[in-house]
């Protein structure tokens, strides 16, 4: 720990020269300068490309079994080895992102829309509406998302749509909370009073006056949530409540093979685990970059 004369200080004075770039453009340029964001973006782009075009360069059919060659260790023929029914692990890892990259973004989109609407209404109207909804959301958030999802999926049955809806609705309160606190702060600002003094409708005030100002926290929260949605979908698939066989989904593959790692068949799970890890870290690095760009 060194003692410097300026170990901490008051915030920098704002640049006084008028900046001609709009705020969003500024965020965009600062994203392009952020190594964290670009790294994350590269990783995510790679997996999106695999999901879209993986079939064309995967050496084997990811679903084709080959019992004779089951559980073969990595070799020149099968770079990542084969699983317990002889499917090529490399090919499966390449295309394994397809389902999770459909389900997680859709769930996030649903969460963002529902959460933004909820947050805007509760933050704007305050009072009883806010109290009641906030209590319900809080009760919702008292339980880990994975368990809420488990309960709902057991009750409703497993399908991709269920997973999207359940994760989307589980995340909505979290986004709503972020939006609500941003709206509560905005609502205290005098431009809202000025809108009331023009007899603007509540909808106009919410969506035209307030919403544009709370976009930054919504964007940040959405990118962060996307990471957690991937986390949640992978976990549910691993537990058998998410994406269903015969999909080559990573979580699902780990679920069906991890029973054998005691026997040393590490290749059946390691590559899937690393794939999930890289995707999740990629999304979160990008999210961190977005967060940094908005909070500079």
């Amino acid at each position: 720990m060194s003692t410097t004369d300026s170990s901490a200080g008051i915030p920098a004075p704002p640049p006084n020269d008028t900046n001609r770039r709009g705020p969003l453009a500024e965020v965009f340029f600062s994203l392009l300068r952020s190594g964290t964001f670009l790294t994350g973006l590269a990783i995510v782009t790679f997996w999106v490309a695999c999901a879209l075009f993986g079939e064309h360069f995967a050496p084997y059919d990811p679903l084709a079994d080959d019992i004779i060659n089951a559980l073969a260790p990595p070799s020149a023929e099968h770079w990542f080895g084969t699983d317990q029914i002889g499917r090529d692990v490399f090919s499966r890892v390449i295309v394994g992102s397809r389902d999770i990259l459909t389900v997680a973004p859709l769930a996030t989109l649903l969460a963002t829309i529902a959460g933004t609407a909820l947050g805007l209404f509760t933050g704007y109207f305050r009072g009883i509406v806010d109290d009641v909804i906030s209590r319900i959301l809080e009760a919702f958030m008292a339980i880990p998302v994975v368990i809420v999802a488990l309960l709902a999926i057991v009750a409703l049955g497993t399908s991709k749509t269920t997973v999207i809806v359940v994760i989307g609705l589980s995340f909505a309160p979290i986004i709503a909370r972020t939006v609500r606190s941003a709206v509560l702060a905005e609502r205290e600002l005098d431009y809202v009073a000025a809108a009331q003094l023009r007899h603007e409708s509540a909808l106009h005030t919410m969506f035209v006056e307030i919403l544009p100002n709370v976009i930054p926290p919504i964007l940040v929260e959405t990118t962060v949530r996307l990471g957690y949605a991937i986390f949640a979908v992978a976990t549910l698939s691993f537990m058998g409540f998410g994406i269903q066989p015969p999909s080559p989904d990573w979580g699902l593959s780990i679920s069906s093979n991890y029973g054998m790692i005691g026997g040393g068949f590490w290749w059946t799970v390691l590559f899937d685990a690393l794939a999930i890890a890289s995707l999740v870290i990629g999304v979160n690095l990008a999210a961190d970059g977005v967060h940094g760009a908005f909070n500079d």
Partner: protein
Amino acid sequence: MTEPAKAMTGKAANALELRDLSVAYRVGGRNRAVLRNLNLTIGQGEAYGLVGESGCGKSTVALSVVRYLPRNGSITGGAIALDGQDVMKLDAEALRRARAESVSMVYQDPGKALNPSIRIGRQLTEIFELASVSGQAAEDRAIAMLNRVRISDPVSVMQRYPHQLSGGMQQRVAIAMALANDPSMLILDEPTTGLDATVEAEVLDLIGQLRQELSASILFISHNLAVVSKMCDRVGVLYAGMLVEEGPTQAVFNDPRHPYTVALLRCLPRGGQRKDQGRLDTIPGFLPGIGADIKGCAFADRCVLATERCRTEPPPLYELGDDRGRRLSRCHYHEQAQSLPRATPSNVAAPARQAASPAVLRVEGLNKTYASHGHPLRAVKDVSVSLRPGETLGLVGESGSGKTTFARLLLGLVPPDEGGMIELEGKQLAPRLESRSDDQVKAMQIVFQNPDSALNRSHSIRHIIGRALKRLAGLSGAALQARLDDLVRSVRLTERHLALKPRQLSGGLKQRVAIARAFAGEPRIVVCDEPTSALDVSVQAAILNLLADLQSKEDVSYIFISHDLAVVRYLSDQIAVLYLGRIMEIGPSEDVFAGPHHPYTEALLSAVPKLDQSETVRIRLDGEIPSATNPPSGCVFHTRCPRKIGPICETQEPPLSEAKPGHAIRCHIPYEELERLQKKAVEPEPA
């Protein structure tokens, strides 16, 4: 470890010496100059005032001296000598010792300067511990220190946390902490900014008294010229990180020799100047931004006197002959500075006032009670006013006086308690905004204090004003466009501002946008809630002029809220003085200022520091403004009233009684008696 700096015996000639000090902040990847070759010397025991508008670098001077610049700031050249010791050459330990032993600093916002989770006592005793005084001895010294800053119950204050003290008390504690190490150099950076007028007066008095008792030299930094003139021996005027003028305080303020100082002094409404007597002078243009490339004189672009030479040849600090002390001015034409022509003509068209037009606004018995932690908080109590077209009602009061709540009640943003009445042009208004008609809503608009909060930062200026025209004036298409151009011109914005977002405008320009928005629907009444308190004086003058011009042109009435009496006086025809939600005094502006006044008004007037030191009486209030949740019994002012007459003040609330037509005072002391008392106070004591 290095040889302790204290090894030197005796004091250097100067307490502080800055030689060619340059400081830059790194913003957007570039170093931008904030201080440019600043030279400044403070003698032993001297109080030096540094004044300037925001962004001129005055706080940076203070932070450089204690070497506590923000992370992105760095000293790019020059030297700083504290008591002859080069601050920039100190290593970490020596710097710590210098801070512990010879220099202290007090700054704005004492609430943040004290650690919220440590008791006051501990925050004081740790300073004595640095000097190896601990335990009971440290406690005793801390109590003595609190006594010294006139804290009446130091033992109990020692046990408290900062949030349990009022702003004035917090600043006293901060001053006690700064003085605890008996520093040779005390830096005060806007120490009273943000405090209420009566509290500010007390703190300034305290600093003045402490100066007599202590030997410390003082660097006093402020944007407020009058405060500096009251406190300091010498003053330096800072502009764009450079000293533009320096000299003995009275000499500089009475006989300024730099066009900037001249112009700055003219921007202040002084000597009871009023809107119908002429416009304030202004300074055109803007301060150069930090890091701006300055070729000649930094002020040349804004100076009416500037010649080609000013734009190309940087003026040195000319030494002026003056028998009152050494004087400097950074102007090629310093001998002509006083002849600086006005930037804004003074003459005004006399408004054609209709003699007895009916009131545009009548308010009767307005009350507002909030619930605060289960206790009723009477923010506004029994307020009645009336206002004629084209007139301004000034509302004056300190924090907690209810002036902003009153404005919000009028506008319907907050519903009043049952029973009161607001009448606009003879028609009673619904308590809530939603139930008022569109015509009623557009007739009463507001200019808020803080334009950053009042203007939607996502919208362009065109959208902000255009939307107001659409909703309030019901315009659209070409008619809207024509009116928009008109309105923009009338608040002296230009076409090129329309595409910008608020953050791309300076504070003054933003406030013009807010004014344009308020005037979009041709309102009858505009509430101005401290519209200039966030602005520098040069910008303030332009806004006040604009408001005055618009009023005489549109015959609009203002409700003008401010804590600055000179500003209120400039614009107001009537003035109401509020204290704890009650009107203590109301009457024609000149009567309220001339007196006799309510004892509170008297104290307020006396609290304002004046540039010319013409002050003859000093009325100081004891204690703090009571909380509105638990107002004092009887007359709410009795706890602080210097003219309290007896038990009646504590038991019975005096009525607001009319002393003269239109002039009413809420006091048990009869009008004639007040007149006698206050007249006596004003007369100079026979020597």
